C-alpha cells in the first residue's frame, strides 16, 4: 500500500507522463538538430520564455475551453470573439483620445463585457432553447466575425498610441512578459476553480452524467451558463492581449484559433465527451504543441511541412494517451 503522497505522485505521473516525456524528447531533439546545423541554444531559458509568451493567448482561451469541454460542450466561436474583443478595445482608444490611459482601461472593460456577453448568449441558447453547443457557437463564429468586420469595415484599427501595446509587449525586468504573467494568473484561477470549489465539482459532475447531476440537485442550466460566460470573459482577455501585442485591432485575426485551442485541450487529456479533464493537462498539451511549432521553425522546416508535422504529432500524442489507458 502506497502512502497518499506517493499515490498522488503516481497518478500524476500516469496522467502527465506521456506528455511530459514528449515535451522533453522534443526539446532535446530540437537542441541536437539545431547543434548539428550549427545553431545551438533551443533548450534555453530565453527560448522557453518565448514559447510561453507565444502560448499565452491560446492558453488563456484554452482554460475557458477546458471548462466548456468538460461539461460536454464545445465553443467554436473563440477565434471570432478574440478578434471582435481586440477590435472593441482598440476602437475605444481610437475614439476616446485623451487621456490615453483612461481609454485603454475603458477599452479593456468593453472587451471583457463583450466577451462575457457573447458567452452568455451562447449559454442561454444552449440551456434555454436546447440547441446543441456545436450549432450555437458555429453560428456565433460566423456572426461575430461579421460584426467585427462591420465595425471596422474589414480594416485593422490603427495607428494606436504606443501605450496601447504595453500589455502585449512589455517585459517585467526585461525577461518576463506581462502576457505570461496574465497566463499564469488565469491558469491558477482555473486550477483552483475546477479542482477546489463546488462550482468545479459541479462542472465535472455535469459532464460525467447530466441526468445523475440533475437528480442530485445541481442547477445544470445555471452552471453551464456560468461556464460559457467564463469562457467568453477569458476570450475577452485574450482579445485584449492579442490586439495589444499586434498594436492594432484587426477583425481578421484568430481564424481557426478555436481548432488550435480545442486541440490543446484534448491533447492535454480532457475528454470531448465530457466529465474528465484538468487545467494542468491543457497547459502541458498546449506547451507540447507550442514547442513543436517553435522547434520546427528553429530547425528551418517551412510552414507547409509544419502543418503536416503538427497534424501527425497531435495524432501521435493522443494515440500515446490511449496506449497508457490500455496499459
Amino acid at each position, binding site marked *: 500500500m502506497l502512502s497518499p503522497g506517493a499515490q498522488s505522485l503516481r497518478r500524476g505521473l500516469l496522467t502527465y507522463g506521456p506528455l511530459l516525456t514528449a515535451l522533453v524528447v522534443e526539446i532535446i531533439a530540437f537542441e541536437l538538430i539545431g547543434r548539428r546545423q550549427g545553431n545551438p541554444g533551443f533548450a534555453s531559458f530565453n527560448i522557453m520564455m518565448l514559447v510561453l509568451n507565444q502560448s499565452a493567448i491560446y492558453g488563456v482561451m484554452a482554460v475557458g475551453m477546458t471548462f466548456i469541454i468538460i461539461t460536454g460542450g464545445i465553443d*467554436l466561436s473563440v477565434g471570432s470573439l478574440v478578434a471582435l474583443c481586440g477590435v472593441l478595445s482598440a476602437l475605444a482608444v481610437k475614439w476616446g483620445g485623451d487621456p490615453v490611459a483612461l481609454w485603454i482601461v475603458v477599452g479593456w472593460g468593453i472587451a471583457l463585457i463583450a466577451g462575457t456577453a457573447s458567452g452568455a448568449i451562447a449559454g442561454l*441558447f444552449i440551456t434555454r*432553447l*436546447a*440547441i*446543441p453547443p*456545436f*450549432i*450555437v457557437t*458555429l*453560428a*456565433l*463564429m*460566423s*456572426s*461575430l*466575425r*461579421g*460584426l467585427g*468586420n*462591420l465595425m471596422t469595415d*474589414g480594416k485593422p484599427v490603427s495607428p494606436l498610441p504606443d501605450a496601447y501595446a504595453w500589455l502585449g509587449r512589455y517585459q517585467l525586468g526585461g525577461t518576463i512578459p506581462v502576457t505570461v504573467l496574465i497566463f499564469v494568473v488565469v491558469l491558477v484561477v482555473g486550477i483552483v476553480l475546477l479542482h477546489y470549489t463546488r462550482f468545479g465539482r459541479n462542472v465535472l459532475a455535469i459532464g460525467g452524467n447530466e441526468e445523475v447531476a440533475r437528480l442530485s440537485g445541481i442547477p445544470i442550466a445555471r452552471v453551464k451558463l456560468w461556464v460559457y460566460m467564463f469562457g467568453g470573459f477569458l476570450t475577452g482577455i485574450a482579445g485584449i492581449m492579442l490586439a495589444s501585442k499586434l498594436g492594432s485591432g484587426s477583425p481578421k485575426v484568430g481564424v481557426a484559433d478555436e*481548432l488550435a485551442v*480545442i*486541440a490543446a485541450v*484534448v*491533447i492535454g487529456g480532457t*475528454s*470531448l*465527451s465530457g466529465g474528465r479533464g484538468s487545467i494542468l493537462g491543457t497547459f502541458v498539451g498546449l506547451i507540447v504543441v507550442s514547442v513543436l511549432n517553435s522547434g520546427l521553425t528553429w530547425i528551418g522546416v517551412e*510552414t*507547409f*511541412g*509544419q*502543418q*503536416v*508535422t*503538427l*497534424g*501527425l504529432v*497531435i*495524432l501521435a500524442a*493522443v*494515440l500515446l494517451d*490511449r496506449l497508457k489507458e490500455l496499459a
Partner: protein
Amino acid sequence: MTRFIAKHSPLFILAALCLALAAYSEVFRSTANLQSVATRTSEIAVLATGVLLVILTGGIDLSVGSVAALGGVLCCMAIKALVAAGVPDVLAVFLGGLAGAGVGLGCGTLNGVLITTGRIPPFIVTLGMMMAARGMALIVSGGNNIFGMPDAFLWLGGGKVWWVPIVVTVVIVAVASVTLSQTRFGRALYAIGGSLQAARLSGISVNGSRVAAYALSGLLAGFAGVMLASRTSLAAPAAAEMYELEAIAACVIGGASLMGGEGGPVAALAGALIMTVLRNFCNLQNIPVYWQQVLVGVLVVALVYYDNYRKRKAGLITD
C-alpha cells in the same frame, strides 16, 4: 400531417424560402441565377453527404475541406503529367479524377482506422487530418494554383453542359439515400449512432461500418475536390477552406443530430441549398459580405431551433 411536415421541415423551409424570394426578386427567379445557385451548391452537397454518413454514427469529419483541396490538386497534377506523357485527354482526365477520389478514399480510411483501432476521438483524428491534408496539398503544389487544364476536364464541373454537376450531385444524394434506408450497411450506421453498445450486442460489425463511413466521407470529399477544380478549371491548394463547417452546418440545418442516429441525405441537400440560396439572395441585394456572415449565423440558429420546436410539438423527440 403536422408530423409529416415536422419530419421533412427542411424541405418545406427551403420551398417556402425559394417561393418567397422568387416572388420578391425578379433576378432571383431568373434561369441564369437559379442555375448558378444549383451549380454552386453541388460541391457542398457532395461533401455534406459524406459528412452525414459519419455524423449518423455519432462521429464528425473536420478533414473534408482539406481533403477536397488535396484531391483537386492531385487530380489536376496527375492530368497534366499524363497529358504531357502523351496519354489522350479523355483518358488522362478519367485517371486524374480517379486519383483525386482515390486519395480522398485513402485519407478517409486512415481516419476510420485511427478512430476505431486507435480509439482516438473523431474530432482529433480528423482535425489532425485537416492540417496534414492541407499541408500535403500545399507541399505537392508548391503553394501554387494549378491551371491550364485540358478542355475535357471542364465537363464534370458544368463547363460544357451546365447541368452535369447537378445531375452528378443528385445521383450521389439518391444513391446515399437508398443505401441508408434500404441496405444493411445504412441501417447499421443509424443503429451505431443510436447506441454503439446496443449495435455491437445485436451483432453489427461496428468498427467495420464506422471505417466504411469515414472512408466514404473521404472518397466523396476527394471527388468534391475534383468537381470544384473542374468547375473553376484550376486546382488551388487553399481551396475549400472552412467547407467542413459548411458541410456540417448543411447536415444540421437538414435536421441531423450531432449525437448520431438522426438525419438524411435529402434533408442535408436541402440544408446546403438553404445556405446557398440565402447567400445568393444577399449577393443579389448587394448586402455586404460582412452582413452575410452575421445573417448566416443567426439563421442557422433560428432554423435549428424551429426544426427542434416542430419535432417536439409533433412528438418526434422527447426530453
